[in-house]
């Protein structure tokens, strides 16, 4: 029984190492390899919600890793590879969508919200500074 439990424990501890997706492929050249890893983290797996193809164990992610590897070997640049994948899978696969009419709200939203928030904040400050200090406001 004890042996069984120990075996279980060892398995449990070892599991996370097995879960981590080691990209099967790589490059001997460290710079190239670094480029490859970076690129994999930039591309979102189409089948799995919000996992990059570097982190996903879905078969399609493995295929896309192989595709990226192959395209790099053929001498394609990062942008060309990303453009190819976008032409096939759509903007979905990039984490940094380009600035275009359909993404204006996405890119502009945070700035607009910050602006509105700042405006409201300034107004509140102005209102407050006009009000005379009284005992109640100092609590």
């Amino acid at each position, binding site marked *: 029984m004890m042996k069984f439990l120990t075996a279980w424990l060892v398995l449990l501890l070892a599991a996370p190492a097995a879960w981590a997706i080691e990209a099967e492929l790589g490059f001997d050249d460290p710079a190239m390899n670094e480029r490859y890893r970076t690129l994999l983290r930039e591309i979102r797996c*189409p*089948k799995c*919600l919000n996992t990059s193809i570097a982190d996903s164990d879905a*078969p*399609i992610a493995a*295929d*896309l890793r*192989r*595709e990226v590897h192959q395209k790099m070997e053929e001498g394609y640049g990062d942008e060309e590879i990303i453009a190819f994948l*976008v*032409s*096939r*899978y*759509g*903007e*979905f696969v990039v984490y940094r969508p380009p600035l275009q009419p359909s993404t204006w709200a996405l890119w502009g939203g945070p700035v607009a919200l910050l602006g509105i928030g700042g405006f*409201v904040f300034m107004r509140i400050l102005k209102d407050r500074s006009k009000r005379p200090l009284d005992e109640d406001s100092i609590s």
Partner: protein
Amino acid sequence: MWRYAIPLVFIAVLGGFLYRGLYLNPGYIPSPLVGQPAPEFSLPSLKEPEREVGSDDFAGKLALLNVWATWCIGCRQEHAYLLELSRTSGVPIYGLNWKDDRDAALDWLATLGDPYVATAYDPLGDVAIDWGVYGAPETFLIGRDGTVLHKHIAPLTPEIWQRDFLPKIREECGSLPCPLVEGE
């Protein structure tokens, strides 16, 4: 007045977005290939490995390209309907067998019936990447000039055929069977 109006408007807008979000399918990715020329390919035939099957086979024809595999449950669901379409619709169906085992795939066609004019065998999924395939079953409608007219992800059903495919087919060629482009 303002003090209440701004938060209310804000909540209404946010609520509107969230409400809409309830009915969106986050797994659905619109294909950028629709309206674009279909990617060319040539692969060994599933049934006759020495023969090539590819985009040349449906050049000049209105055709369906159905991506399937024996490990795909949705493919089994739609199989009977594909058989029906192959008999009644007048649109030739080509198969792309994706990341599958040849023997299993042949067995599937022998047992369940073969709706395909020809099936290309893509065990590594290279051609599938070129077509932006990410989950079987997927069905492409390809026009006579080789343009992708429509892409459907998930099993094909009579409702979807009526709603999504038939209007596109009518637009492309009036009535079925679709006349071939002259000179092809």
